[in-house]
């Protein structure tokens, strides 16, 4: 499957990847109020890299990702688990949501919260798990 992509696919992938990345972050952040969330966003970013993988090869995809997907997977689990801990210091049960809404002038309200951190964990786990599988399969192919 090495570099099987056509010129059209490569060019498309190169342009689509940053857009899809941005889109996934958008979906992740708006998830609490509109359709979206960490799970969907994780799948979107995985698809983006899978597309890139088809257009180029495993080595280039890995290089672009910057980190081993298994590391991202573990990091996601860690973040998700840790996000449940802060409420304990406020005398609340594990995983009680904590909220710090901030007004950003000219943008509106930004809702920082522990559920958001948790959702980022979900995002990383899904991304890490899917890419672990996809890259392993692709590598076995090569």
């Amino acid at each position: 499957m090495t570099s099987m992509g056509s010129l059209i696919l490569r060019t498309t992938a190169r342009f689509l990847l940053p857009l899809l990345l941005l889109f996934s972050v958008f979906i992740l952040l708006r998830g609490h109020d509109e359709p979206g969330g960490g799970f969907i966003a994780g799948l979107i970013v995985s698809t983006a890299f899978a597309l890139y993988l088809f257009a180029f090869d495993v080595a280039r995809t890995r290089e672009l990702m910057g980190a081993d997907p298994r590391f991202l997977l573990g990091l996601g689990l860690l973040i998700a688990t840790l996000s449940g801990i802060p409420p304990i210091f406020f005398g609340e049960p594990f995983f009680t949501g904590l909220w710090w809404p901030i007004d950003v002038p000219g943008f509106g309200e930004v809702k920082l919260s522990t559920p958001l951190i948790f959702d980022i964990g979900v995002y990383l786990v899904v991304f890490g798990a899917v890419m672990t599988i996809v890259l392993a399969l692709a590598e076995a192919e090569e």
Partner: protein
Amino acid sequence: MLIAVLSGFILAAFAPWLTRAFGDKAGWLLAILPASLFVYFASFIPAVSEQGAVVLEYSWIPGLDISLNMLVDGLSLLFALLISGIGTFIITYAGGYLRGHEYLPRFYGIMFSFMAAMLGLVLSNNLITLFVFWELTSITSFLLIGFNHEDKQARWCALQGLLVTVAGGLALLAGLVMIGITAGSFELSEVLAGGDVLRDNPLYTAIVLLVLAGCFTKSAQVPFHFWLPNAMAAPTPVSAFLHSATMVKAGVYLMARLNPGLGGTDLWLYLLGIVGALTMFTGSFMALRSTGIKAILAYTTIMALGTLTMLIGIGTEAAIIAAMTFLLAHALYKAALFMLAGAVDHETGTKNILKLGGLRGLMPITFLAACVAALSLAGLPPLFGFIAKELMFEATIGAPGIAFFVSLLALASAMMIAAMAAVFAIRPFTGELKETPKTPHEAPPSMLAGPVVLASLSLIFGLLGFIPAGAVVGSAVQAVYGSPLEVELYLWHGFNLPLLLSVLAIVGGVVLFLRWEQVLDTFSRMTFIDRFGPERGYEKSMDGLTWLAAWQTRTLQNGYLRTYLSVTVLTTVVLTLWAYFVRAGAPVHIGDLDFTFYELAVAGLVVVGAIVASVTSSRLGAVATLGMVGFGVALIYVLFSAPDLGITQIMVETLTVILLVLVLYRLPGFLKLSSPAARVRDAAIAGSLGVTMTLLILAVNGVTVVEPISDQLTAWSYPEAHGRNIVNVILVDFRALDTLGELFVVGLAGIGVYAMIRLRAEDKGQ
């Protein structure tokens, strides 16, 4: 108090680092913690003597009725003092014994965890918390017994100890839960104050049997006693700790603890009395035919555990006083003897008592301490062990119903133990010096401090019986007996039957000692004991377990995806249909058939896609039509206003196609391998799932059993969780813990697939 109990766990985290930093001095430094715990627990003595019991409350999981409440009464205090007191000496001793050992830092880490678990076990006022600590002691002692993990024998012994005690622990959990439900509370202080609630309940027999299954395995009662001698695979400091004050005494602790609630019945009396007496006899007999210095001591521990169980079962005033006195006496001399045995082993390089001799001059302090401790073991005046033995005989004579039986066994055991005490204290030290693997010399101070202090205590407590009686034994007896009792301990009880039995035991012991080599010769030829002992039963059941695992793996986990699918589908279908027809009475609710043409069109597409996918003979065609099914389902989600589900479905479908494309190249060419009959069978299985799901939907369609929770979640979503997307709010807030669990599943699945692919790739590479 909570900090005192948990401090061991905290120190366990730092112990390895401290050990490396302080090197050979670490033992002395680390012993400061158990020593200060000892002082701290001792400060409770006045309060406990006055009030009987002190309960300190800490909540843990209030929703499940699980607390970290601590119950400090005579019994728990006696144990806490023994654990921390003997623990102090064990820690310093280990510093000498394992000096320079590669894994000493790790050893201290496990040891402190174990000590903390043991303290938690004896101080918990909550049955569930108690159980958690109980299992923690099993796990940490597994690590301690298997400390020399490069030795196959040690690993095997550790596993045996773990399996036996954990199997019992499982029964214990059931028993404790039943106690909690029956008594209406999981707090020990309330359960024990409940009077006859447990005894009058129809579940009483089941509770006793389950709880005792836990206690008997943990405290190595016949027929589960075999794991304990094997636990000697541990380094000596561990054996000394496990055998004297901890681990194996946990079962005794629990029996004593529950005695006011469960004791006093015939079942309790006969089970504990007879099993205990048999264990006592077995332990003594096996000690008599052992030649290893640690093996002798291990079997005398079984004797002591049997004695304690028997005394708790007898349950009379005299028996409980005897039990608590014996407990203390045994802890003192057994810890000392084990540490001395370790010192001899460490300095000479052999454990075989037949190969030792003439060490008196070379190890004078060891010899002296061994003499004192062994005199206490043998039960000779003026040592504390003598008082304990006198009390034991008094208790067995007064045992209701089984007096003759238990007294006879007690006398026989006492004779054999007296003989072995003499063998232990005299043979290695007298006679001519024998050649040993190492040139012997006196052990270092760190290894002598414990035995010397503990042996001296055996002597002091014997002469001045009012010290232990007034400090803790008295209030311990009160806690176990359930009502206040006057406890006085002194050496001279006048000329009576117990004294006569004591004298007989000593005389018998001396005779046995003088003829020990002959006795040993006779008994060691009785190899059928080793061949048909309960340990064979353990091995057989382990073999059986392995066979069962192999069988079920071959049958159910055979590696064929179609088998997994069939089993999963058929199980679901059978259980669901059973519930549908038998439990629910086959309800069908068609409802109003109101649909639009595009809904029908999408449904039609899905059906056509499914049919084509299952009959096509082209892989690519199958992938494409399966995609058609998936996107159709996504459309249905969108039509029924579930955009999140719809998006997810589309993403999953996209990724599935990607994965299939990656895999497709690796598959062999498309072949029809299945026979027509197999295809019919598979169609039937697949069809049954479809029919079941259809029936299920028709059934739930018209049923509203409870108010749907979704209404409430929708109402809460914005005010409580600041989110308008209810799906996401449920995922990351309301049910975040579930999501976390699922994340771990996703992670594991990813790693699992990765491992499978990589392993195959590596296999091929080779």
